[in-house]
Every structure is written in C-alpha cells, then in structure tokens.
C-alpha cells in the first residue's frame, strides 16, 4: 500500500482513505462539497466537451471524514444531457436520425467541387512553371537572329570555294562544277572511312556548305588542294574530297554540314 500511496498526484486521495484500509472502522470517502461552495460555471448554451467539463463537480473535491458519509462518489454519468452538437453539424444532418445516403450528395459535392477547382488551379500553376523552365532552355529570338548568316549565291562563281565566318567558325561555300558533282556522285560509299553519299551531304548538288574545321584536331583546311580536289588540312595531312568527305589522312569524320536552306538565290545558314 505504501508504495502505491507514493504514486504521484493520487497521493492525497490514498492518504485520505488509508485509515479505512488499516482499521476498517472509520468510513472515509471523497464527497463533493455542497453546491453553494462549488466553483463551477453555469451550464453553457452550446454544450461542448470543454464547456461541459467546467460544469463537472470535480474541481471542488475534498476528502471528508465521517461515519455517516456516503460510500460512493457520484459523478454525473447519467444526469447530464447529451451534448448538443448542432453547432458543428452540417445543415443536412441537423437531425441525427436521417439516413446517410439521403443527404450524401449535398454533403460531399461541395467538398469535391472545392477539391476539383483546387486541382485545376494546381495543374495550371504546374503547367506554367514547367513551361517557363523549359522555354528558358531555348535561345532567345535576338540570339537566334544573330546566329544566322545570309549569303548571296550569285556572288560566288562556279568552281570557287568561299570562306565566311559563322558562329566563330569558318564556313566554306563551294560552287561545284558539273565535273566535281559527277565525280563525287560516282564515289562508292563502301570505300569511305565515314560513309555518306553526296546526296546526304548536299541539298542542291551545285552547292556544298560545310564548316571548315578539320575533324582531326581542328585546323582550317585549305580549299582546292589535296589529292582529291577538295580540301587539304596542312596540319597533319588530311585529304577531303569536293564533298567534304575524309579520304586520306588521320581525320576520322567528314567535314560537318551545318543546317542550311536555299531561298530564292539566298543561302541561309543557321
């Protein structure tokens, strides 16, 4: 018993009832003090758990010693009315005896509507964010406009290779003769190191548009030189033909063809 008595906040009650256990003669019980001494707030209009708790007669509890004292403490288990939850109830369920399926539409649809509209707004926001980030990866319109070069093809005589600067790199435009076209078309593709047909490399067979950077170590090849009548890289001796394809020497790939379009006598590269 003594060990139980020491158990924390219950100690006063155990102390008060200890004589009952020890001699069995004195009757001791905890009784609520008379109502006029109780400090309890009157029953509130809206009956909630919190407000009703204030009205319970537990605050003024005092142990009392008497032979005639009643044995039991009667807490209000049965004489308190069922709390009124009407303040919390939806309009449709004010009468708690109605069936759930009769008012399920009114109860659920507004909640679902809010959820649906919220999802719509969320989807729109997500789409906007993704679009903004993806479009930030593409170049701006002014940058794209500067990255293009227009070349008047009438100024380039037949059989001549002209060099321009395009995006910091030399750009070779070659106006090919009929002989050169025939030669390049006749080359068997299987014999090439980087097999590409002449049709794959040119849009108009008369015009060859290539970037003048050797695919070996990046020197600028010399036009109309080398064993194959095209380009020759003086650094390590790579020979390119009149279609810009590697034919001899250390370079592994053909000269690069940039994206280009022909437009009424104008060549637009980029």
């Amino acid at each position, binding site marked *: 018993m003594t060990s139980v008595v020491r158990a924390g906040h219950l100690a006063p009650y155990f102390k008060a009832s200890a004589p009952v256990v020890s001699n069995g003669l004195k009757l001791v019980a905890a009784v609520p003090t008379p109502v006029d001494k109780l400090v309890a707030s009157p029953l509130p209009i809206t009956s909630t758990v919190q407000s009703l708790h204030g009205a319970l007669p537990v605050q003024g509890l005092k142990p009392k010693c008497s032979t005639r004292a009643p044995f039991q403490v009667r807490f209000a288990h049965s004489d308190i009315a069922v709390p009124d939850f009407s303040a919390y109830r939806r309009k449709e369920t004010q009468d708690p005896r109605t069936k759930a399926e009769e008012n399920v*539409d009114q109860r659920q649809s507004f909640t*679902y509507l809010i959820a649906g509209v919220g999802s719509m707004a969320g989807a729109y926001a997500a789409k906007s964010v993704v679009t903004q980030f993806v479009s930030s990866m593409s170049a701006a319109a002014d940058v794209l406009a500067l990255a293009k070069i227009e070349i008047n093809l009438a100024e380039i005589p037949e059989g001549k290779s002209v060099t321009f600067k395009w995006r910091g790199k030399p750009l070779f435009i070659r106006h090919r003769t009929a002989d050169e076209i025939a030669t390049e078309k006749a080359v068997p593709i299987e014999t090439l190191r980087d097999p590409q047909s002449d049709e794959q490399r040119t849009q108009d067979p008369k015009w060859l548009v290539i970037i003048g950077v050797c695919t070996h170590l990046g020197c600028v090849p010399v036009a109309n030189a080398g064993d194959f009548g095209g380009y020759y890289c003086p650094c390590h001796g790579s020979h390119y033909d009149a279609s810009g394809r590697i034919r001899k020497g250390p370079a592994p790939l053909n000269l690069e063809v940039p994206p280009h379009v022909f437009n009424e006598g104008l060549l637009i590269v980029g």
Partner: protein
Amino acid sequence: MSLWATLNRTVFKRTSTFALAVASGTFFFERTFDVASQAIFEHINKGKLWKDIKHKYE
C-alpha cells in the same frame, strides 16, 4: 439540390471521371485566368502600353 446530386453521381464519385473533369477543366481555367489577368494588367497600365501610344510614332 438535384444539380449537386447529378454532379456528385456522374463526376465526383469515380476517380476516373473526377480526374478527367479536372484535366479538361484546366484548359478552360487557363484560358479564363490568362484573359482575366491580361485584362487587369491592361486596365492598370492604360495609356502606357505600346498599343496606346503607337499612333504617335507611325
């Protein structure tokens, strides 16, 4: 009341129709939102926009 009932029974009850309604509703929401926000912007900045001063320079 019957509007809520129809809406709940046909659209909200099933996740598939709910998701479909959200996805298709987003298109209309986007259009409405964009037009409305654009209109608000132009109302606030009336007189400062290029379309308001264009006639002075052309």
